[in-house]
């Protein structure tokens, strides 16, 4: 009897597996996200997973050119680049005519209406409105004339949403004038971000707090449906104003086949599918089986995928037709030391000792598979002020010197130093990194106490300045080192992004000066001065500048992603025949 049941069960299982085939259309791109998508509201685009999906639905005035490097800002919904006044304080944007929002039930007859300049003012006001609880206000904070006053009045209840903002004027439907308080050289960069995207007020009025589930924009794709905790599906927006594939790029693009579709209308792919797969194993395995079209390369699967030269894929992947794509990441991973901590904050020699004792090279290999370089300073490769020959004297791995400085700090042999608390999140990888840190400082006689938390608890401890040291990373929002240095600017201390609470008067003054200068040699000189102050005071132990590795299946064409860019799925094309053929074999 038992045997009969088992046989029946096995039959049922076999039956189920026979019928298991993919139901997603071939002309689609599927990508797996490392975390769940929380919201589709552009106001929440600080979350990198929200930021992966939303820019395909919502567009803004400007975008980055897909192929040109270094990254260049070009118009998206703006009609040409804006006219700038002589003093750099007034930027006049012309809006493209005939751009319509996607069709949606929020509009009277379901048909998307034309976008006008007032829509941009509405969308940006919404970011500035404290009730929206967006973490994107920093892009306008203190920069646009009158916006801070408007925001404060609204929060206090003495102002209304409809009240005008002096620095945002729409003299007619297709003109937007932005007036600044002082020169803002990163303005165009921030206007490419999803925070600055345009959405119709009808959608927010209709959906209220549910807007995060019903995004409406002008983008090439619209939300098809969302199975929370599983996947988000976007499908082609028939109303899209249209764009064509770029006709020029940088050197090497032609040979790489990236100009094969020059001039052709976008988008090529009918559907975008974003799977929410936080666990490494299923994310990797689904990629290997072709259930997703491209993916990241988890650190534990790296050795099985890439040869020692860090550039070539191993044969078993090459056989499947998989390609490797490496992009510079313009980021930094660092160990932050709380400057307001009584032990670490006042004692620069202690910080130097810790830095000298931390051997970055094995951690680069172990946790990043050598996909990156040892970081010397906050300025990552590719950005103004980066000097490949610059060496941070404290980044030299030297245990003897470390012990010397530890003694100078007043704790010879670690005596008298209470255990230092290392705050971390509780994933398997974070745990391993914490163990590594403990091992690094042990020879100095320094004891580390690891406190593992969930991500919200972790950020909470940082915000309330309770953490002593912790590991964290930052990728620039745009290609300007200012975005790194703002992490060290005194007034940005917790609860702001300056999580080490570094507050050096000389640094602060130089930083403020750098904001007034356009990109150029004078500014670069200041960036290097800022770097030098950082190195001398060492609020962080910089560890790694990472590279972004992606693996793609053979049928994915036109891939040239840069981590700062978003909404570039419209350029990708799928060779449907190749996909059909290859998937059988995988």
């Amino acid at each position: 009897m038992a045997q009969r049941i088992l046989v029946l069960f096995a039959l049922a299982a076999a039956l189920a597996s026979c019928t298991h085939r993919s139901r997603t259309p071939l002309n689609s791109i599927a990508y797996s996200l490392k975390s769940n998508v929380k919201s589709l509201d552009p106001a929440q685009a600080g979350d990198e997973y929200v930021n992966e999906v939303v820019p395909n639905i919502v567009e803004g005035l400007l975008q980055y050119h897909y192929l040109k490097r270094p990254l260049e800002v070009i118009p998206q919904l703006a009609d040409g680049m804006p006219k700038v006044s002589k003093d750099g304080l007034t930027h006049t944007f012309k809006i493209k005519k005939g751009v319509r929002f996607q069709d949606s039930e929020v509009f009277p007859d379901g048909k998307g209406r034309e976008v006008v300049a007032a829509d941009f003012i509405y969308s940006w006001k919404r970011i500035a409105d404290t009730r929206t609880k967006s973490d994107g206000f920093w892009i306008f904070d203190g920069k646009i004339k009158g916006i801070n006053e408007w925001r404060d009045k609204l929060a206090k209840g003495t102002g209304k949403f409809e009240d005008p903002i002096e620095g945002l004027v729409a003299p007619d439907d297709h003109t937007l004038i932005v007036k600044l308080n002082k020169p803002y050289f990163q303005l165009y960069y921030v206007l490419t971000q999803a925070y600055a995207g345009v959405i119709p007020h009808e959608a927010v009025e209709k959906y209220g707090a549910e807007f995060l589930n019903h995004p409406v924009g002008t983008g090439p794709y619209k939300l098809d449906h969302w199975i929370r905790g599983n996947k988000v599906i976007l499908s082609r927006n028939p109303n899209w104003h249209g764009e064509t594939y770029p006709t020029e790029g940088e050197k090497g693009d032609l040979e790489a086949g990236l100009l094969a579709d020059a001039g052709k209308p976008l988008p090529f792919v009918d559907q975008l599918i974003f799977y929410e797969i936080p666990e490494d194993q299923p994310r990797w395995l689904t990629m290997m089986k072709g259930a997703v079209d491209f993916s990241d390369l988890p650190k534990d699967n790296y050795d099985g995928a890439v040869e020692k030269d860090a550039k070539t894929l191993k044969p078993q992947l090459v056989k499947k037709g998989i390609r490797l794509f490496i992009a510079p990441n313009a980021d930094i991973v660092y160990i932050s030391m709380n400057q307001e901590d009584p032990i670490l904050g006042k004692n620069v020699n202690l910080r130097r000792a810790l830095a000298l004792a931390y051997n970055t090279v094995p951690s680069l290999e172990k946790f990043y598979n050598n996909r990156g370089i040892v970081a010397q300073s906050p300025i990552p490769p590719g950005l103004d002020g980066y000097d490949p020959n610059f060496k941070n004297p404290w980044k030299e791995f030297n245990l003897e010197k470390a012990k010397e400085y530890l003694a100078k700090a007043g704790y010879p042999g670690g005596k008298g130093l209470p255990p230092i608390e290392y705050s971390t999140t509780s994933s398997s990888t974070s745990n391993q990194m914490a163990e590594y840190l403990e091992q690094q400082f042990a020879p100095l006689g320094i004891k580390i106490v690891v406190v593992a938390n969930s991500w919200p608890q972790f950020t909470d401890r940082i915000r309330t300045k309770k953490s002593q040291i912790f590991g964290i990373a930052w990728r620039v929002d745009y290609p300007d080192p200012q975005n790194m240095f703002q992490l060290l600017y005194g007034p940005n201390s917790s609860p702001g992004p300056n999580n080490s609470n570094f507050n050096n008067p000389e640094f602060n003054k130089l930083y403020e000066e750098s904001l007034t200068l356009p990109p150029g040699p004078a500014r670069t000189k200041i960036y290097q001065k800022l770097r030098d102050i950082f190195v001398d005071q060492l609020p962080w132990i910089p560890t790694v500048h990472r590279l972004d590795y992606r693996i793609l299946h053979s049928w994915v064409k036109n891939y040239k992603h840069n981590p700062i860019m978003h909404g570039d799925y419209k350029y990708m094309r799928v060779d449907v025949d190749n996909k059909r053929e290859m998937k059988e074999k995988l």
Partner: protein
Amino acid sequence: MKGKSLWSDARSRLRRDPIGMISFVVICGYLLVALLCATHLGFKGYNVVDNSIAYQEPSVVHWFGTDIFGRDVFDRAAHGTITSLTVGFFGAGLSVLIGTILGAVAGYFGGFADELITWFYTTIDTIPYILLVVAFSFVMGPSLTTLCLAIGLTSWIRHCRVVRAEFLKQRERDYVQAAAALGSGNLRRIFVHILPNTFHLILINFTLGFISAVKSEVILTYLGLGVKPGTPSWGAMISDARLELSRDVWWGLAAATIFMFFLVLAFTLFNDALRDALDPKLKSR
């Protein structure tokens, strides 16, 4: 007295039970391993870091290969015994302690005390175990102590019910009435007379709780609520397989699973043997 003869009777029955004896020996073996690890007399490779031999396959030198930091996996699994035995002992111990006290009070005194305690454990029982443990772990922060406390504070109900039923049954018995007639106060009656008659239940539920605690440690560690990183534990080794398995590193998972397997199996079989020895009517085999 009834108590003594039950025990000597049980002991001789247990001795004649080969499976029971073998499992007892195995459990002692684990205790020995834990002792050797704790005193650093054995399995010393567990924290010998050597990054050049990270993730090596099992070999003659390293029976279960090495982990991410080049440490011997077999030795780490051996050290995991300490964590599991600690969690098992203190977790089950605490739960049995609380269950006994509350069950005794409820069963013996009856009336309002009984109503209150019954209400209390019915309430806790209604809340899903995993959510209760999660809430505790959040308040106290993940650590070995938290794990023991969380498991102990949430799994006492079963035992409490059993002890309560036993006390309800026993308090009307002749020998208790006799003790009362002779002037024994309540406390004396509880501790000296009735409680010894529940020791067999305590023992059985302790071993059951031990098994459950060891298995809970794995799941809680997987959820990020386990011991501090760096402390060797079977839960950590099994959870790390999340990263390791898809790169064909199976030896961490295997070592921890095998170590846990024999401990849990031994306790399960020993529990059965105890049951048989203490109450031959309940022949479970």
